[in-house]
């Protein structure tokens, strides 16, 4: 029973990871680089939510929507100003540039917010019990959102024109242009989407956690773990891999000290990659 309880919390942990990673994976897939600043966008969104909610007394839902929109725009703006001019360069250059962006956002957040802790003005999580297992309303929201986002993103990428265009541009932008894909519109859509997803994850972070300006960036390691495990660029595998990492981390606490949870996350990554060298979604053989 205790084990099952660990499993339940693992699923919730995993779903948060999915939300945090899916936008990151999208950027990786379409733009071709690991956007380290993605984690800081979570922070932008989380603190925007907090600011509107706690400072200006907005309802948390309204604050969340505004924060997501704002984060999406911030993400798009950064892409225009910073990444677009160096698009043609190697992924490593973009990756490190994104680290620079992360520094800037982190420093700005710190300058604006300062030290100390911040929490949203929302009540305590509701507790539900069934079959002797306990879940909180917050966990349910995270799980529900992760499911909704995964499904709608899958539908979006496979069924819609924009989605297909995004995937085509991801593989070969020049050819995509010749096939009639509007590159700038598609790129804009991608950035809005991936940053918006970061925004959503940021709202979840604000809901669950106690905010400090460092907290968002602290998630980057696990985001990386999940993204890599999924096989870079694959979105569906992110779901599987997020759950796997989340459950493995939490269930492991049943046997080994909780201090080792990050170790478990990365041990899972190592083990899986040894058997599937290109991640869970890997189609490429060694």
């Amino acid at each position: 029973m205790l084990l099952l309880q660990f499993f339940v919390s693992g699923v919730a942990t995993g779903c948060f990871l999915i939300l945090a990673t899916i936008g990151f994976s999208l950027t990786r897939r379409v733009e071709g680089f690991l956007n380290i600043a993605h984690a800081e966008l979570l922070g932008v969104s989380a603190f925007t939510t907090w600011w509107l909610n706690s400072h200006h007394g907005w309802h948390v839902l309204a604050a969340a929507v505004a924060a997501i929109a704002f984060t999406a725009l911030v993400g798009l703006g950064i892409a225009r100003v910073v990444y677009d001019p160096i698009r043609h360069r190697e992924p490593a250059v973009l990756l490190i540039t994104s680290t620079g962006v992360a520094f800037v956002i982190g420093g700005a957040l710190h300058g604006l917010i300062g030290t100390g802790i911040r929490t949203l003005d929302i009540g305590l999580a509701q507790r539900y019990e069934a079959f002797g297992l306990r879940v909180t309303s917050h966990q349910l929201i995270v799980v529900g959102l992760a499911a909704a986002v995964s499904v709608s993103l899958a539908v979006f990428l496979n069924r819609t024109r924009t989605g297909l265009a995004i995937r085509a541009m991801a593989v070969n932008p020049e050819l995509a242009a010749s096939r009639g894909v509007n590159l700038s519109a598609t790129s804009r859509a991608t950035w809005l989407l991936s940053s918006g997803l970061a925004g959503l994850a940021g709202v979840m972070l604000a809901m669950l956690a106690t905010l400090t300006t460092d907290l968002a960036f602290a998630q980057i390691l696990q985001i990386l773990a999940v993204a890599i495990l999924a096989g870079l660029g694959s979105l569906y595998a992110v779901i599987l891999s997020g759950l796997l990492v989340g459950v493995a981390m939490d269930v492991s606490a049943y046997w080994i000290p909780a201090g080792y949870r990050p170790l478990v996350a990365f041990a899972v990554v190592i083990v899986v990659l040894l058997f599937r060298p290109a991640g869970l979604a890997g189609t490429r053989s060694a």
Partner: protein
Amino acid sequence: MNWPQLLVTVLTLGSIFGVVTLSLNLQYARGGMINFGIVAYFAVGAYTYAIFTQPPPQGLDQYKFGFGWPWWAAVIVAGLAALVFAAVTGWPTLRLRGEYLALTTFAFAEVFHSVLLNERRIGNGTVGLARVERPFGDWGPIEEKYVFAGAAALLLVATLVVFRRLLVSPYGRALDAIRDDETAAMAAGKPAQQMRRQVFLISAVPVGFAGAVYAMFTTLAQPSLFTAEVTFIVWIALVLGGERSVYGVVLGTLGLVFFEEIVRAWPFETVRSAQIAAAVEHVVTGLVFIAVLRYQPFQAAATRLRASR
């Protein structure tokens, strides 16, 4: 501004990290292997050095091993330990490619960090090992810190010379071929797996040495010194310098450390100003990265350097 002091710090730390960047450069720019866990090899060097030089445990110490060896022996062991660690981590991971390799090495480093943090019998857990032996003394009229900086710089130069020697040989060209297209290189008779492994191992050794020197510099081997941030910094230095050239790499590292020092060189006399500076420092650092990557001054400088030779 105290220029000698500034330069001595830049030279010391720049050399230590320069060795690491050079090794990364060998692995990445030539070997095509993205090692995102380089900090672990660095940490192995530092911890090994600390463990081998420190006295056996006593009092509140929780560590189990302390051998009290002379410093030079411990430095050699640090290099060897990094080599062994590279062999152990490289064996399963080197068949992975690109970012998958990057993240597996990253994962190894995180696992290692986590072990250092939680397993208190190795190095006192989070407390770490303090007062690591710092062997150099004043050398005649030359102050200890200059001697130390000189030793670090020598390690850098030695690494540079050895690596360059390797890379201008057909071995270096074969590495390029393997990195560009492994299958085609194998079809041209290049033992890709074996060579990648060799490069991975060779380049780990100087990182181990650098780790030992770093432990001397900080007189500390503590998990918090060996976080993923070190990996990031070294990678930043590598990319800033333009990862294709060894000179660029060294310049990039020195430039980065210089920048870090120069932003600190300004003394802040009030709490408020220091606080503002702390927030601004991040922003400025970020902006400088972005700008340097866009305009690539170090790469250009390295190109001129090469051209002028």
